[in-house]
């Protein structure tokens, strides 16, 4: 074999393995929707439930403690425990599953941050308090943030602000999600904000900014809105 062909073979095998590698690069991706369409921030869109136009400014939430189950037994979990999903940052919506088990039938995770982490002091990356997901007047992460405007909202400037959080009993808000997964390479998890309005009346509850009973109710509601999507 000439030097040239050796190099070519090397190149091709590199490309081949690279392609295989890509194929193995399984992911969980979060798809944030508004009435079945990708949600675009600061853009007026129609909500059939509200029968009104609505504009979102912030859709941001923590997901944590991903665990893979087979027949009810935990077979694997992700090393990184906490992820901040921000609709404004497309890269934040994809979680790499390289190296994770692919033999499972159920995925469990939490919406929010557990109480232990809430009491563990300053942390970096997705948990850095500069992410805007940490309260300042009292300790604790904001697990789920949804903000925007719609004329159906009686708040000041028609603004709705849901900052759901709180880790102390009886107002702990970190909520578990369980999804049955069939044999899929990539997992797509959808959150359609329209389903939120089906369960929450914006003319009554439009401003939650502290831990409490209402935050617990809405957090449980929100955790039920995460559905398995199609690849």
């Amino acid at each position: 074999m000439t030097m040239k062909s050796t190099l070519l073979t090397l190149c091709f095998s590199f490309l081949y393995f690279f392609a295989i590698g890509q194929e193995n690069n399984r992911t969980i991706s979060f798809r944030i929707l508004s009435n079945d369409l990708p949600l675009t921030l600061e853009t007026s869109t129609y909500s059939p439930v509200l029968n009104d136009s609505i504009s979102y400014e912030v859709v941001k939430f923590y997901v944590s403690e991903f665990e893979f189950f087979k027949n009810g037994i935990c077979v694997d979990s992700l090393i990184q425990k906490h992820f901040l999903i921000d609709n404004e940052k497309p890269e934040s919506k994809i979680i790499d599953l390289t190296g994770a088990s692919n033999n499972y039938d159920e995925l469990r995770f939490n919406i929010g941050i557990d109480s232990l982490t809430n009491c563990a002091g300053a942390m970096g990356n997705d948990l850095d308090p500069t992410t805007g997901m940490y309260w300042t007047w009292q300790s604790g992460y904001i697990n789920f943030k949804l903000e925007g405007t719609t004329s159906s909202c009686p708040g000041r400037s028609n603004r709705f602000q849901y900052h759901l959080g709180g880790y102390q009993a009886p107002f702990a808000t970190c909520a578990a999600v369980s999804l049955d997964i069939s044999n899929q390479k990539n997992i797509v998890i959808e959150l359609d904000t329209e389903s939120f309005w089906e369960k929450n009346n914006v003319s009554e509850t439009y401003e939650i900014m502290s831990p409490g009973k209402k935050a617990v109710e809405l957090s449980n509601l929100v955790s039920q809105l995460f559905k398995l999507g199609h690849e």
Partner: protein
Amino acid sequence: MSKKTIILLAVVTLGFAFDSSGILELTYPEYFPEPVYDLKKNPLTSEKIRLGRALFYDNILSADNTVSCASCHSPYNAFAHSDHDLSHGIGDQIGTRNAPALMNLAWHNSFMWDGAINHLDMQALAPISHPKEMGDSITNVISKLQHSKIYPKLFQEAYQDSVITGEYLLKALSQFQLTLVSSQSKYDDVKLGKDTFSTQEMNGYKLFSHHCNSCHTEPLFTNHSFKNNGLEIDTTLNDYGRMTITSNPADSLKFKVPTLRNLSFSSPYMHDGRLRKLSHVIKHYTSGLHDKAIISDELKKPIVLTSNEKVDLLAFLLTLDDKAFVFNPAHQFPREILLGD
């Protein structure tokens, strides 16, 4: 002075000791309990303490660069604010609570008069963001620090990273505050057998042990709990204390038990600074308790003291003053960093 004496002196005055790895150890008397703060998650180094000290004294932490942590937490007042009943923020705004003295913070499991903050690292976020205190945001403060002349270098030295993060900023502030250990009062000397109480102080100590120690527990002189100590609500503030955080009516008018160390330096007293003198405090507990129905159990039985006993109790309380702490040069404004001296 021998080398050993110098090291010993350094240990005693700085509140931390060096080991060969560059990691410093928090030092405290053996009769202190184990600290609550997990130092393994934020190991002390001289570079980080230095950075934290600079941040603590720097007005850059406030929106208009006029107020620093030390504005309300002055070293000469045991890190409280002399003569100010309520805290003082940017634009001459007045808050709703008295700035508490800062010491022995490694032993605290909650912060603020209502325990709103659960960890020393997270405490600084509150004053930085409060519109009546520093009125800024951590994101903006970091951007100011990143563009300042001195901080990128100080952060680089402390964290080997030129990118400033919220985690670094908060942990550095914790480091400096963790070194604020007060353990060199006359009381401590007596504990160590290096001094003895006068008859009056000894009598005061007995009265203290009987009437005060259940909440202001030795040797930190607080048990870090929340209690209703019989102060009538100030209707100009309507501060219900702990209940604001827990939403539990049983926590109404409960405030965190403060330490009794360094009282001479940290007047005025109580969560709203309503009592200016220690004699007023003693008068409050002996004859001024309000609404006995909801007062803490420890105060349900009246505290009866003769005027001589009051003087004795005061004499004991003064043995908790720690001049070495209050005048410790390592705790004071770092001229060499902030003024480039």
